[in-house]
Structure formats: C-alpha cells, structure tokens
C-alpha cells in the first residue's frame, strides 16, 4: 500500500479548474517529484494535500486513512509536514521558537528535545543562529529553517515546495544534499520543483504536470533522458 495516495482530485479557484483530475502515489521511503512549468498546479496540489485548499472532489489518503475533509491544522499530527513555497518562516520569532512551533502538536518533551538535537546536527547553522530572529536570516538559512521546522513534527512524509527558489547554485546543491539525507533518515519526500534537472537527479520517480493534468510519469532517470522532457524542462 502506498504511504500517500491521491485519487482523482479536482480543485477549483472560483470557477477556474486548477487541478483537473490528478492521481498519483508516493511509497514509503521514496523521493517523488512533481515537475512542471509555472502555473501547472504543483503548489495547488500540495496545498490540497495539507488542507489549505479543499478539493471539489477526489480522495487523499495517508496509509489508507482518508484525510480529504481533515482541517489543515490537524494534518501535521497525522504525519505530513509541509515546507511551503517561499519558506514562510515566522519572521519575528527566533530560530529556536520557529523550530519549537514545528513541534506544536507534540506533547513528548524528551522526544521534542531529541528531534531538536537531530535538526541542529543536520543544520549546524541553525544551531549557531538559534537566538537570532528568523527575518534576519539569509534565503538559504530560511530554507533550512523551514525544513528544520517541518522535521520537528517528526513527519512520515515531508512535502517540499520549490526549495531551490531564489538560491544560488551552490546553495541549491547544499539544500538538495540535505533533502537526500533527510530521505535516507527515513522520511518520505514529495518534492515540487521548477528546477527539473536537480529534482530528477535525486528522485526515484517523477510526475510531469501540465495545466492541471499529469501528462507523463515514471522512473526519474528514464524521464530525464526522455526527449520531450528534455526539450520542455531540461533546456534541450
């Protein structure tokens, strides 16, 4: 059984149909990526999974449990952590407070401290800057904080929305390295990216989105050699 399965969801913004019946699944331990151009509906899908935008129809299941109608604030405690587009860290709060808010729904103090030291281990820079106000961090550091904050909930699956956005190539490589490590530590990853080249490199499987529909899917390595994908998303 898939860890996360999306079955024929339709999402509307007013009268405009943004997602026109999409189905896909993510298995335990995988990195799956959704690639596609701007406006293809990648972010909308993630928002629908975490309940920020309700779908008009369709089914979203985590380990067979239906969470289509679950309100957004109850999703994280079910095991889905969402690193939103543009990081959206709490600018006025310290790095430490941001991380603790990531563990907002957890009650086990010892467990939280344990996760916190693991997050500090993966992101030493966050430890150095733990008392700094998040708004003063650089873009790359904010991305790390957003990911660290998501990991604080000890998720089964992490949804990542455009983690490379606005970062230098060097930082992008560093972030993708961390994503791989997070995955190796046992967290399943659903990655949404415009940087298709990087995404296909670390993913095991990929889905290609075009204006609200999945037009192609398969093994990430195979897709990266596919002529159509190359031409449309990998710059020839």
């Amino acid at each position, binding site marked *: 059984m898939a860890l996360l399965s999306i079955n024929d969801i339709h999402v509307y913004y007013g009268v405009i149909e943004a997602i026109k019946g999409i189905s896909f699944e993510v298995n335990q331990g995988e990195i799956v990526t959704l690639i596609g151009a701007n406006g293809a509906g990648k972010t909308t899908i993630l928002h629908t999974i975490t309940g920020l935008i309700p779908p008009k129809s369709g089914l979203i299941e985590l380990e067979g449990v239906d969470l289509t109608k679950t309100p957004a604030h109850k999703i994280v405690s079910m095991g889905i952590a969402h690193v939103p587009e543009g990081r*959206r860290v709490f600018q006025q709060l310290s790095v430490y407070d941001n991380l603790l808010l990531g563990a907002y729904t957890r009650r086990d103090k010892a467990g939280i401290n344990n996760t916190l030291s693991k997050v500090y281990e993966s992101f030493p820079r966050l430890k150095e800057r733990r008392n700094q106000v998040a708004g003063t961090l650089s873009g790359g550091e904010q991305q790390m904080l957003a990911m660290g904050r998501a990991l604080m909930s000890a998720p089964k699956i992490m949804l990542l929305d455009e983690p490379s956005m606005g970062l230098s190539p060097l930082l992008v490589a560093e972030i993708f390295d961390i994503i791989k490590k997070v995955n190796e530590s046992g967290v399943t990853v659903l990655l949404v990216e415009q940087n298709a080249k990087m995404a296909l490199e670390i993913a095991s499987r990929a889905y290609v989105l075009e204006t609200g529909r999945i037009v192609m899917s398969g093994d990430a390595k195979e897709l990266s050699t596919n002529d159509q994908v190359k031409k449309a998303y990998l710059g020839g």
Partner: protein
Amino acid sequence: MSFLNYLISGLSLGSIYALIALGYTMVYGIAKMLNFAHGDIIMVGGFTVFTAISSFQFSPAISIITGIIVCTVLGVVIEKVAYKPLRNASSLSVLITAIGVSYLLQNLALLIFGSSSQNFSSVVTMKPWQINKQLVISGETIVTIIVTTAIMIALTLFVNKSKPGKAMLAVSEDKGAAQLMGINVNKTISVTFAIGSALAAVAGILLCSLYPQINAYTGQMPGIKAFIAAVLGGIGSIPGAMIGGILLGIIENLSKAYISTQLADAISFAVLIIVLIIKPTGILGKKITEKV
C-alpha cells in the same frame, strides 16, 4: 495642583487606554479586523459590576470577577456569532458589522438601564496617599497604575514565553503557515477575543471607579481614544499599544491642565494626525511588505 499630580493622573488614565488598546491591537493582529464594539465591552463590564453591587449586593471582589467573566464570554460569543461567519468577507463588511454590534450593545444598555447616568460606587477602598501639601494621589489612581502594570507584564510574558502566546504571534504573522504547524486558527482567534474582552472589563471597572458615573455611552469615547492609542503605537504591536495608551493619557491630561479642557480631545486627535504624517505605521509599527 502640581505638574507631578497631572502627570500621575495622566499616567493612570493612559494605562487604562493602554489596557483597552491592547484588545484592539491584539484582535487586529490576529483577526486583521477593527473591532469597533470593543469600547462597548468596557461599558458592559462597568454595568455588570454596578448591577452586581447595587442589585445583588455582591462584594466588590465577587462583582469584579463577575464583570470579567461576563465580558470574556460576551467577547467570545460576539466573535462566534457576528465575525466568524464573515472570516472570508471584505474588511468593509466586517467593519460595518462591528459598528452594528457596538450600537446593539449600547441600545441594549439603554433599554435595561435607561438613558440617565447612574452613580458607580468605586470598587477601590484604598485611602488617598498624601505625599505633601500639594501632592495627593487617590487610591483609584494608585490601584489603576499597579493593576495595569501587572497586567501588561503578565501579558507580555504570556505572549512571548508561553506556547499559546507564541501560537498567537505565529497566527498574526502567517495564518496559513501557522495551520501547517498544527495551530487551530479559529481557537486562537477565540482566545484573543477572550483576553481582549477581559482586559476591557478590567479597564471599564477602573475607569468607572476613577470617574464614578456610568451610562450606555461610557465606553464610546475611551474606546475611540484607545483606538487612537493603538494606531499611535503601531496597530498590531503589543508594546506599541502600551506606549501609545500611556502617551495619549498623559498628553490628554496635560492639555486639560495647561491648555484648555475643551481642546484636550482635539489635541489628542491632532497628535495622532501628526504622528501618522511623520510615521504612517505608528511609533512601533512595522513596515509590512505585501507578498504576492
């Protein structure tokens, strides 16, 4: 009367404005709405204590607790019934609804208590403090300053140190991201209204003890003044509301003493206009860059 005397009574009036302004600013920060019925909660608090003492012969302490509970419940109910259904409506609709709720509360008070002012017996039993021949500080003034200072310290600690407080800061900054952390936004808004209304109740009781009269419009002017204080300090900012309130109270009292009693309110409004021209976001207000 000495300058120091005017300053101290200005400080106590200002700290009452600050208490009310905190309700305005917290609700604005969390729910992004101006709750113009907030001033009338003051009046409800005053009338509850008035009724508890004069009709039910409750002790002052029990009356105060009753007043705070009634206002807290009322604030939460108003939010649930009047504002929550409009969560996704335009801010103009919410504003008009808030003004409607304000009139509703005032007219209910008119219906129950009539239009003439009632004498409010102060809940403060402390004796005036005679420092020297010129300087006498009333018990109400002393109690007001002590109570408001304690509340402001407690509130600052609650918001910055406690888990629900940090959740409030998170919701005020980014509702969506807060939900992703597992924070229940509706619950946070309810808590904010509860705290704001409880503070308004305390403010109302202190205000009626300082100026021992009450009628259906008692909350109107202090409500507007506190709104000015919140904007002056930077709406959405908790320390801003405290500073704005205290400044406004002192300015108002000193204007009354040295310039003109009739012009005091005009001067308060003029100060607001000047500050907003120089710094449109208020004293501690942050520049907000809208993200697209």
